[in-house]
């Protein structure tokens, strides 16, 4: 009961925090300038424009959605999508059971500890002997460990990750706030962290929820700061153990430490104290400065690789960020620093220059207190945590960042090779509105370059986008989202597992290769057929149970249903010859016409029986034919739809 109470109270507090965040985030509704999308000038009809808008700012149009957008008005729809917060009842109904995703990092760590932690605790608590990994004993220990875990109410980590992955798939499929889903996907990939790094994996769901999602239409600076302080990022790019180098900062420290040791321990003489200090210093030397985050925050998150920074800037930025780490988490991280924090006491932390903000800790004792200069800007020599905040702000508003981010957005939403003029407009907007993402997006969609005929359907769907757009277009009932995860992985995009901090590349060339393309076709066939239990489709229902009268009609009808407002002449033309096989009618007739030989029965009155039998046969025949028709129609439709989804045209957005 107690734990439930804690969870509830945590949820409530989360709510409050969420509310505060929302009220701070920029609200596009409050902007005064009205925007207009210049699609008519580009020669597009309103419906074509709506289709383009949906293909770029949603995970694919659902049947009838183009009508909705036209009815709402394109600009109005976009504005509503920017604001978000549209009720998502059906999504919520599908995700009720996902309790883990509301947990804080600490709770997640309590409930879903890493197997290695469980093992460690089991050893420490004497459940199994310290040296227990003998094969002979393994079975007994296995049981003991399982029992221990059960008593402690630990759950398997894989369950946690399944929930998270399923959640992403369901949100992308069913959320009415499509733009927020698309942007969350984009920004997560921009600030990539990965399940493949086990140390940070457990903290990734909270990372997406708390450091990415609330900021996707807000100020870039806020998202940058939130990611920098989030445990997942701190662990993924190693800043959590970046400590001021001893030669930079610790000269005086050694003398002080020596005196302290001697004070604390009367029996310790000067030589012993020196040796001890030396030993500690050696251990520290191994830790020292870690430049990984400082480098990637410039190269990948803000300025871009050609953003005009040097290796010296990286080192200096790393020194500014020394001490940015996680607040200790029980049984997981930071037992060493916990002792120090306890000694200082929570209420005196800030006096000592420490900052404790949720899961984030600025550890003053690790911070490099000397002066630093990054990109020509001098940082106050002893401003502690604020130095880092200032650094990130400077990076967030840098001209190179405006260029890098706007180009990346244009590549994602417009074209693999966006027009320079478009990027320049967006860049200007970014700087003018101080990194306001909504404003940049509005500028982008209000530019003629967004509607240029050359960019319509120029982008290739990522495997994730392909899978989600298919189930959305088919109005599929996704009961087992994890099945889709498997397919998306096979097609080349194991979501949340991209190892490098670059995130998945955002270009067709990366996604389209031999193995991946084959799997796209196989995915199309699988999702349209009944092969994929747990992802149910109703192909006839999609066309209001209106049965196509011929294969040709099926092809045309379903092509249009799945790829609305596109010129499908080519696709249909290419497939039509396959429909006009001269011998075909005969073959089908032969196959279908093979009647069962009449059943033998005892005859009394031949004539009577004949009539009876004829009537019975007729009825059976009819039923059989209907059944056969149903099956054959279903199979035929499945194959048509499978080929449409696997077709080149459906790969584009």
């Amino acid at each position: 009961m107690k734990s439930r109470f804690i969870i509830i109270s945590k949820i409530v507090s989360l709510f409050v925090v969420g509310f505060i965040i929302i009220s701070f985030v920029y609200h596009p509704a409050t902007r005064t300038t009205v925007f207009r999308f210049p699609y008519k000038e580009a020669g597009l009809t309103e419906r074509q424009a709506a289709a383009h808008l949906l293909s770029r700012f949603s995970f694919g149009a659902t049947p009838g959605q183009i009508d909705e957008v036209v009815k709402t008005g394109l600009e109005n729809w976009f504005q509503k999508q920017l604001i978000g917060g549209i009720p998502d009842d059906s999504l919520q109904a599908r995700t009720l059971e996902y309790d883990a995703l509301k947990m804080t990092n600490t709770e997640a760590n309590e409930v879903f500890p890493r197997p290695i932690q469980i093992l460690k605790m089991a050893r420490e608590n004497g459940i199994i002997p310290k040296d227990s990994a003998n094969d002979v004993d393994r079975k007994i220990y296995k049981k003991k460990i399982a029992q221990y875990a059960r008593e402690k109410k630990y759950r398997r980590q894989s369950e946690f990750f399944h929930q998270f992955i399923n959640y992403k798939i369901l949100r992308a499929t069913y959320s009415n706030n499509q733009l927020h889903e698309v942007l969350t996907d984009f920004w997560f990939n921009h600030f990539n962290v990965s399940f493949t790094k086990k140390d940070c994996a457990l903290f990734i769901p909270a990372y997406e929820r708390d450091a990415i999602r609330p900021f996707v239409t807000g100020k870039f600076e806020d998202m940058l700061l939130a990611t920098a302080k989030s445990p997942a990022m701190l662990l993924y790019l190693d800043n959590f153990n970046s400590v001021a180098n001893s030669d930079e900062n610790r000269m005086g420290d050694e003398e002080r430490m020596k005196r302290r040791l001697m004070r604390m321990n009367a029996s310790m003489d000067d030589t012993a104290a020196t040796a001890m200090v030396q030993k500690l210093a050696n251990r520290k030397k191994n830790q020292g400065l870690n430049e990984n985050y400082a480098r990637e925050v410039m190269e990948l998150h803000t300025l871009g690789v050609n953003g005009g920074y040097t290796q010296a800037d990286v080192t200096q930025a790393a020194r500014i960020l020394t001490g940015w780490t996680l607040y200790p988490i029980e049984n997981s991280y930071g037992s060493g620093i916990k002792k120090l924090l306890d000694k200082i006491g929570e209420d005196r932390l800030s006096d000592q220059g420490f900052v404790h903000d949720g899961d984030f800790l600025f550890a003053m004792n690790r911070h490099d207190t000397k002066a630093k200069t990054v990109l020509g800007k001098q940082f106050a020599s002893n401003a502690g945590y604020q130095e880092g905040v200032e650094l990130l702000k400077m990076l967030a508003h840098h001209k190179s960042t405006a260029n890098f981010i706007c180009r990346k957005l244009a590549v994602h939403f417009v074209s693999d090779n966006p027009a320079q003029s478009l990027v320049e407009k967006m860049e200007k907007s970014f700087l003018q509105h101080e990194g306001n993402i909504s404003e940049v997006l509005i500028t982008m969609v209000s530019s003629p370059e967004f509607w240029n005929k050359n960019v319509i359907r120029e982008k290739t769907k990522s495997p994730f986008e392909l899978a989600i757009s298919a189930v959305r277009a088919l109005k599929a009932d996704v009961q087992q989202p994890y099945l889709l995860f498997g397919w998306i992985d096979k097609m080349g995009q194991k979501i949340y597992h991209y190892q490098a901090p670059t995130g998945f590349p955002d270009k067709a060339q990366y996604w389209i290769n031999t193995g991946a393309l084959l799997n796209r076709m196989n995915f199309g066939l699988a999702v349209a057929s009944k092969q994929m239990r747990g992802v149910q489709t109703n192909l006839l229902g999609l066309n209001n149970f209106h049965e196509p009268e011929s294969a040709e009609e099926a092809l045309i009808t379903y092509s249009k249903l799945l790829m609305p407002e596109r010129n499908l002449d080519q696709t249909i033309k290419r497939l039509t010859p396959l429909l006009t096989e001269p011998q075909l009618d005969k073959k089908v007739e032969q196959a279908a016409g093979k009647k069962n030989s009449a059943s033998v029965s005892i005859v009394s009155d031949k004539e009577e029986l004949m009539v009876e039998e004829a009537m019975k046969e007729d009825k059976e025949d009819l039923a059989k034919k209907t059944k056969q028709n149903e099956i054959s129609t279903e199979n035929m439709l499945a194959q048509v739809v499978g080929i449409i989804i696997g077709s080149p045209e459906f790969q584009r957005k």
Partner: protein
Amino acid sequence: MSSRRGFLKSGALAVFGVSVGGVPAFIARAASKEKISSPYKKNKILVCIFQRGAMDGLMAVAPFTDAYLKIARPSLFMSAAKDARTTPLIDLDGRFGLHPGLRSFEQAFRNKQMAIVHGIGSPNNSRSHFDAQDYMESGTPFNKGTDSGWLNRASGLLGHDGSPFRSVSLTNSMPRSFYGYNTSIAISNLQDFALQLKGNPMAANITAKSFEDLYDQASSDLLKETGKETFSAVKMLDKMDTRNYQPANGAVYPQSPLGNALRQIAQLVKMDVGLEIGFAESGGWDTHYNQGTEMGSFGRNALDLSNSITAFWTDLSSYQDELTVMTMTEFGRTVKQNGSGGTDHGRGSCNFILGNDVKGGIIHGSVGSLATENLEDGRDLPVTTDFRAVFSEVADNHLKIKNDAVLFPGWEGKKIGVMRT
């Protein structure tokens, strides 16, 4: 027959009947030949095996004459002395002994087809599996932001047109080594490389034809070209009977992930589908607890590794001139054993290179005395050979890749002569 009738009934043919005789031309073509006549000339092939988890190089190839090793590892030390109680190490050169689990390497070593590099590792001293693997596979030990893997860059530097099967990783997901823009395939089972329409092979063929036509007419060049490549690749593999594969020369692959992966790579080699870079993984090397001696967790892994590689080498005897196999692991393990009969994360380890152009029968690199003062941070076998020195030399000598600046950006070291010149 029944499946054919069922298919006709199903009406699927009504949609996608084929114009001539119902059998797509490529199937007929393929059926008429045992092997697809290969458009790819006999290329050199490099197969890399990543030993994930960090192999204890000091147990694999032990400097058994070093008294410090015996002291540091009271229960893990193995001797080369022949006594009845334990299986001895295989004495390679009077100083180094091969773990008995690796005994099948002995012959190749004596034949000078296998070289060992000892003290190999990364200049970055990270002891995190994730980071060290990442650095080794990207080939840039100080830069996490490198978006490509070294084997993908190698593929781009081969300097001639490649087959869709140029780079194949027999793994579930694309390994970091293969990240990048040059075509590569990650597949755990070659049987999956086909259009999959359950229970209806005929329908699958016809569907394939539909797809092929569609992609042939695609307006995007990328989709069109890749489509073409895909269908030619499917056709190449169409003839392969993966289930009933018989290895040559009596080679026996272990029934293990590594054994299966190498067996399938061997099949690709024999199919002449243009494989040039193969990749497989071997797991379980993170031996913190009860590492064991001959038949502990280390010993079992060693046996699987050597038996898999030896089966591969034997199976492909007639391709040996074209073939080089190289192992790699992210770092080594502590010289001292820990409190639970294992070893912890260290620095230098060793690797194995097998091939006819290898300077074999030699333990390359440098391993000094294991006295504490000689160890890195007082605990680990120091890294004396940068992995890039070895990888680049193998790529240069075997695959004729000369552009080290692209293969390993930022690296300016010297090669150490593990290959014959």
